[in-house]
């Protein structure tokens, strides 16, 4: 499962590290990557790509999502949207 997470750069200097910490707290191992590494200015700053391991238990995913959404430094958690030619 893939997610796009926005961390408020004013609240965290290390968005990827912050998301990893939140997910570790929820007992999750996952791949976390900053979309724009090192970018701290502008509205694009703080975007993090998260890949949760595929698990048959949806409860695990729900717990991870809840942990991310409840975190005060995280502005939003979203699933990536597809773009197609129009």
């Amino acid at each position, binding site marked *: 499962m*893939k997610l*796009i997470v*926005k961390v408020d750069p004013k609240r965290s200097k290390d968005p990827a590290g912050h998301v990893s910490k939140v997910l570790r707290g929820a007992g999750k191992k996952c791949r976390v*990557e900053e*979309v*724009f590494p090192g970018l701290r200015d*502008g*509205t*694009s700053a703080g*975007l993090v*790509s998260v890949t949760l391991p595929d698990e048959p238990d949806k409860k695990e995913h729900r717990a991870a999502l809840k942990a991310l959404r409840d975190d005060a430094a995280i502005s*939003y958690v*979203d699933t*990536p*949207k*597809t*773009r*197609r*030619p*129009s």
Partner: protein
Amino acid sequence: MARETRTYRLWQHEVKPPKKPDRTVIAKVSADVGAPARTPASSLSAGGRAARAAGVPHDSGLARLIDNGHVSSIKNVFDEGPDETRTLSMFAAGGAGRGPKSHRSPRLVELKVSKGTTPAQLAAHVARMNGVEYAFVPPVREAFARRRRPKAGADPLASRQWSHGAIRLGQARAAAGFKNATNITIAVVDSGIDKTHPDLAATITEYKNFLGGSDKDFVGHGTHVAGIIAAIAGNDLGISGVCGGKILALKVLPRDGQEFDAPAYYRALRYVIGRAQVLNLSLGGEKDPAEIDVLDDVIAAGVVVVAAMGNEYDEGNPIEYPAAIPEVCAVGATNELDRRAGFSNTGRHIDLVAPGVGILSTTPTFNYDGDGEQDFDSWDGTSMATPHVAGAAALLLAKSPGMTPAQVIRKLTSSADRVAGAKKGSASYGGGRLNCEKALR
């Protein structure tokens, strides 16, 4: 995007030498000339036999022309069978009954003029003969349609780009002070571009593949979009683009069946900052907050972002993003009748419309996933309307480099033509159909 099966190929005008007129004289034999006499054929001269076969007396002046070598053959113009020939002769002889008028062919005979004799002189001579009503050298008849020969350097398929007329591009180019967008770069975030296409290659300033793997445009979509914007004009090849600008090609749309990579897409969008002045997004989908954030930075950096309204009018007419982002110029499609294309999404966020049906543009020179043709093809879609507006935005920036994205969009919408009786700001047409001439005034 929807595809048409219409196909165009490059063609070269063939210069053929003018056709020489036939050495022929046509003569009309008088109706009162008698039927050929029943003299045995073996006793006739060559001219006499030929004349009889043509339904005129074997001892007439026409027969003597063959014997004298002025004429090589004589035959009836109307290739009638034996029955009709006999009927013709009977009429000519004032014989039994007159058939229906429509059945009577004029007694025209064709004389093939021998070398050494001038057709005009022979016609004058024959016209004076007894039993001949008139004779003339048949004039050459030509079709009044001529294949248009392109001027040297012109694009041979440009005349099939109806959209350029609709957006009054020719008038804009002819106006004083017009400046091509040669110093403007338009980013095309799409399925890639065929870098080897002869009508595009020289316009591509940079090509970046955000997906990894092959750089090829296997979808053909990006190549088509780029051609509408900037296909090279005046190169004796294919079509011409709207603005003559440079293309920054950013590949993010995968081929059919492969997964879309959202982070790669965001990186491509942001890559435009500092590298292009206009961003063409002939794509769409659901609302995406990360896309909104990234495009906010792109627009703040002075890039005019132009996006397609979408082609799902008949599938619930959903609101598509990024077109629905307020600061993005949202473009719908019109057809050749200046009406909204049936597939083009509507909504209050629409800024303007541009041609998007039967749009001829470049397609990959290699076999790609679509069933379209190679090199050039006509496609439909708001994807095709969007690059017309992106090209117009580039022309505006070439003329007035200091304009902000908001000013460019306002200028394009305020100068657009009202169409189909729709009020400015309608959900179908927005400000109206793009008018480059008025926008650049």
